[in-house]
């Protein structure tokens, strides 16, 4: 018997893994990937709740999240490429344009 909590717990674990990835890794690409994991965890939660309520709205939201992720990846990778061209590295510890 699968309960809603099964999916939500999976979603929470995936999300936490994403958070750890974002916080620990210094490779911009991996951080980006971790963000994708977090987005997917959120999607999973959406769809699980939608399934529980028998509605489709959660799936619609998940669809929008996917579109958003696609847009985000297009721009984000462009930025990472530009930074790489300029700095020669994607190590976030070495990139400090934002240093005030």
């Amino acid at each position, binding site marked *: 018997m699968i309960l809603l909590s099964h999916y939500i717990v999976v979603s929470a674990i995936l999300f936490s893994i994403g958070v750890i990835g*974002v916080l620990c890794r210094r490779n911009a690409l991996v951080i980006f990937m971790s963000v994708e994991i977090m987005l997917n965890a959120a999607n999973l939660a959406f769809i699980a709740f939608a399934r529980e309520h028998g509605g489709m709205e959660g799936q619609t939201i998940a669809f929008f999240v996917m579109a958003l992720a696609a847009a985000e990846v297009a721009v984000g990778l462009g930025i990472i490429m530009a930074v790489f061209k300029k700095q020669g590295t994607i190590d976030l510890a070495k990139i*400090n344009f*934002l240093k*005030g």
Partner: protein
Amino acid sequence: MQNLLLGIPISTVVFLIPLLPFLGACFNGLVALMCRSGKAPVPKPLVTLVAVMMPVLAFALTVWLFFFAKDPATGFTTPPLWNWIAVDDFIAGISFKIDRLSLVMGLIITGVGSLIHIYSTGYMSHDAGYARYFTFLNLFLFAMLILVFAGNLPLMFVGWEGVGMCSYFLIGFWFEDPQKASAGKKAFIVNRVGDFGFLLAMFLIYKTLSQKGLTPGLGFLSFDTLERFRGDLFLVATPICLLLFVGAMGKSAQIPLYVWLPDAMAGPTPVSALIHAATMVTAGVYMIARLHFLYTLSPVAMEFVATIGVSTALFAALIAVVQSDIKKVLAYSTVSQLGFMFYAVGVGSFSAGIFHLMTHAFFKACLFLGSGSVIHGLHGEQNVWKMGGLKSKMPITAWTFGLSVLAIAGMFPFAGFFSKDAILFHGYVLGPRVLWVMGFLTAGLTAFYMTRVFALTFLGQPRDHHLHDHAHESPFSMTFALIVLAILAVVGGWVGVPESLHGNDLFFRWFAPLFPYQEFYEKIEHAGRGTELTLSFVTLLWAFHCALLAFVLYSQKLNIAKNLALKCPRVHQLLENKFYVDEIYQTLIVNPLGWVSDKVLWKFTDQKVIDSLFVEGTAQTMSLAGRTLSLLQSGAVQMYAILFAIGGLLLIAYFVL
């Protein structure tokens, strides 16, 4: 008023009178704008035609209207053309008050104005700003006509401000000269002080009336309404009248706000004639006459007006005695004569004030135009000490000037005699004796300094031969105006020949219904003709002797005059420097103001407080805060992410646990 002119109601036709000069101003303004770059030549004939035709047409219309509307004396108020202020329940309309007072004023303005326009075509013919000049001159006529015809206080204030503005434009007409530009500014600023009083008076009236429960609405603040509800204003009549008089002080150059008028002579001479002698400066007198029903409520204010008036008269006359600039003399003379008018209205003889206003308009305009003719003939020379003996060179100017001098000096039977005589007589009867004495002295001084100017300019030996040789009589357009005005200066007073001289006192009878103050008339009646005759005779004699003295001193015994000045240098210096009023003002008002503006407002408030503290201080505080906070800005994105995550964690913990 159901009468129609070509099917149009008269009340509508009235609006044409100010409208015509306005159209002329618009046209000339457009021409001036289009020719501004100097590429296209100014179409002078066209400009002249429009500029002169409009006042003449307005004059014709006014004459027609005069015969149409002179009866009944109280006149009528036109229905508003439109409502130009409609704020909440306060509505002010464009409506005109047509009665004998405004009609007389309108005649003076359009008549003298037309003549001066004609004169200007000659005087300004060589000036580059020909079209601009006529733009302002037409605009001035428009504003002045609005002022006198206005049916309510706000509209009157529009005209009041309009004439001030045009005066500013025309005084600073040659604005390339900084001195002249600053003279314009001075006039404007001093006028602002007066206007402030006028505005306050209006507010006070509005507040009082609306507090009394009068429903504001159309026609509120109109003269008819004010007259009907004057009883409600009884308690505040004194402050209202005094405040209004402050406005009049500014506009009509009375102590202590007279200082701008002598400087206003920087403008072209016809402007001085029209604005600063005949019309604009008399607006204060007109205003008091128009609001006589308010002034008679407050004897204190009346007395104040009379005192200021006669003091100004004497004061200005004293200064005029020693001035060497022909226009300055005339300017102080104007101030002095305006003082006479205020004296008249101050003692309650409104018709005498208006009478003097009219005659003064004639002879003073003629004098100014004459001086303009002299200046024109001498290529801009204004110092009387460099003139002399010009009679042979410019006979027409000399004759007209001479007649006007006789008129202003109060010689029988010229215009000035009757009007000044009436003022002094009424002042003697109605007002304190001290004031009369001062007026009496002034009358003599007037005769003295006017004769002095005439003698120095036209009689005696030429003192500057170079100038004298090149002097020439002015063109016909100028002399025409001079001649007409001189004739008026001679005959203008005959409408008011008193009964004591076996005249019928037409002017006063005519105005009597307008100023229904029985006690004044009774007092005058009570004084009797003997007193009047005696006073006239004494005054005439006194003036004649003064004039004779001046004539002798300045046409034949110039040395004595000069020695006299040397013998009492202090007095001479004092008079020469106009009692140091400008300097006192400079020290007491302008300098402190300047100091406050410079040190307190600019250097301290603006630079230190606003600029440094508020503007830069804000920026620097921000920048300091920014620099402090930027220490947190390590550039390590993950640091931010961790902080963010911890925050999020705490938030989730708060909600979950």
